[in-house]
């Protein structure tokens, strides 16, 4: 697919287990962060977002944690399913709704 990079960090996880994907961001002034999921052959798809005045936000099977002290963002996926296999990108809002994307993490779910 278009998005997969041979050198992307890869997380292999057993179906049903929880997944944790980590991301470091660079701009301490960023006020908004997003996680995107990109499946092979598709464009990035929004998963969940969080504002800088929060440290945790939960969605359906996903939780995003924000640690502004160390500029770290994580995405937790509960009960990982085969459909969760994809590349996951974190992005920070650089102002004017411009997003700066991380390099991505490949998640491979083992049935």
């Amino acid at each position, binding site marked *: 697919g278009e998005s997969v990079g041979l050198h992307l960090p890869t997380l292999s996880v057993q179906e049903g287990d929880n997944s944790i994907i980590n991301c470091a961001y660079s701009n301490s002034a960023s006020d908004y962060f997003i996680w995107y999921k990109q499946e092979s052959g598709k*464009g*990035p798809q929004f998963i969940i977002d969080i504002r800088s005045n929060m440290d945790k936000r939960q969605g359906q099977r996903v939780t995003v944690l924000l640690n502004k002290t160390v500029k770290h963002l994580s995405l937790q996926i509960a009960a990982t399913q085969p459909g969760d296999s994809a590349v996951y990108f974190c992005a920070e809002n650089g102002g004017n709704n411009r997003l700066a994307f*991380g390099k*991505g993490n490949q998640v491979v779910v083992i049935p």
Partner: protein
Amino acid sequence: DARVTQTPRHKVTEMGQEVTMRCQPILGHNTVFWYRQTMMQGLELLAYFRNRAPLDDSGMPKDRFSAEMPDATLATLKIQPSEPRDSAVYFCASHDGLAGNEQFFGPGTRLTVL
């Protein structure tokens, strides 16, 4: 089901040829972004428009790339002349202009320049 559309989905061309990629943003969205994705660089912002006016194209090589919005329903990205290093997937994303709302990505155009 509102979505961003891009054409063509795939384009193979020879070095030196002109390439035009098209994007139809979601109706009512006033902000359009162009990104390029490669294995080496990941997702890079090339340019973006608000209300059809270019706000920032600093990520775009000016000598060969140009981006326009002829009307609110069409954004174009043109490369002339194309080079093998332009081979990548080009994504368009649209946004409703409200702070904190998500960008919606199109399916991308996979460009191969031989």
